[in-house]
């Protein structure tokens, strides 16, 4: 009856030289909080599906990570969010792409999966589906943070088109 949970918060150019002590500390705290949330589900005999949703929801709300609150911004300075979830038990899956008003995109992906008609919804239609399903909504200023806006301006000032080297996560 062994259970296991793994989380990630992105891969890229992290080095001890690049990350500030605060970023390092905040990232580790976020990862630990996600492990706490997911393992609480598993330790209580809950499902892997509920555990991964709980862990990702914590990371989406944590501005140290590129998802949900604190997401990387589009060229136009907006948050266009993507998420997916899949159950290995029956291979049901749900996913959303390019959404911008649901506080936790992983919950919207799960709602798509539970609804069962589709696997992938995108854009304004997915935002509309979220409203129909009564999911928690969030305004743009929940997702768009000043440090992300500054990264976008820095990228534009360097003549970049988009962050192909994943410098910003």
């Amino acid at each position: 009856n062994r259970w296991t949970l793994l989380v990630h918060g992105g891969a890229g150019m992290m080095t001890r030289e690049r990350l500030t002590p605060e970023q390092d500390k905040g990232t580790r705290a976020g990862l630990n909080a996600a492990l706490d949330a997911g393992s609480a589900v598993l330790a209580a005999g809950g499902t892997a599906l509920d555990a991964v949703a709980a862990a990702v929801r914590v990371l989406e709300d944590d501005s140290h990570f590129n998802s949900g609150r604190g997401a990387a911004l589009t060229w136009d300075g907006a948050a266009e969010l993507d998420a997916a979830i899949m159950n290995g038990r029956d291979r049901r899956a749900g996913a959303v792409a390019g959404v911008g008003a649901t506080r936790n995109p992983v919950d919207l992906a799960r709602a798509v999966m539970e609804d069962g008609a589709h696997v992938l919804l995108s854009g304004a239609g997915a935002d509309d589906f979220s409203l129909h399903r009564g999911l928690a909504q969030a305004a743009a200023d929940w997702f768009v943070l000043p440090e992300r806006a500054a990264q976008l301006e820095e990228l534009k000032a360097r003549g970049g088109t988009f962050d192909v080297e994943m410098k910003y996560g």
Partner: protein
Amino acid sequence: TVGAVACDAHGHVAAATSTGGVTGKRWGRIGDSPLIGAGTYADDRSGAVSATGSGEFFIRAGVAHEICARVRLTGEPLQVAADAVMADVAELGGSGGVIVTGPEGDAVWSFTTLGMNRGRVTSGGERTVAIY
């Protein structure tokens, strides 16, 4: 990008991934995260995968499904399959990382970047959080 994979006490697995994409993206660009089989996949017959990295290359390599298919069809260990597929992504010119678990509760990660924000915990009491 953030993600999680889990194996519960009944041996069922699941995966979830969520992202803002890349800074400065335009024209409706979508990466691998929401594409089932690229950035996210789960199958009790093999494992659960959540990926992060240069999405275009993860899409072309079909990373999450490829890892699961290698395990299901060849019986390869999860770590061997994950490392092989990440090497395939590198051959295409991409980089990034995956977290993987299976119905036996393995805890596996593989990445080809300088760092990956990652953590794992098991019912046996093991707990690791790492960045570099």
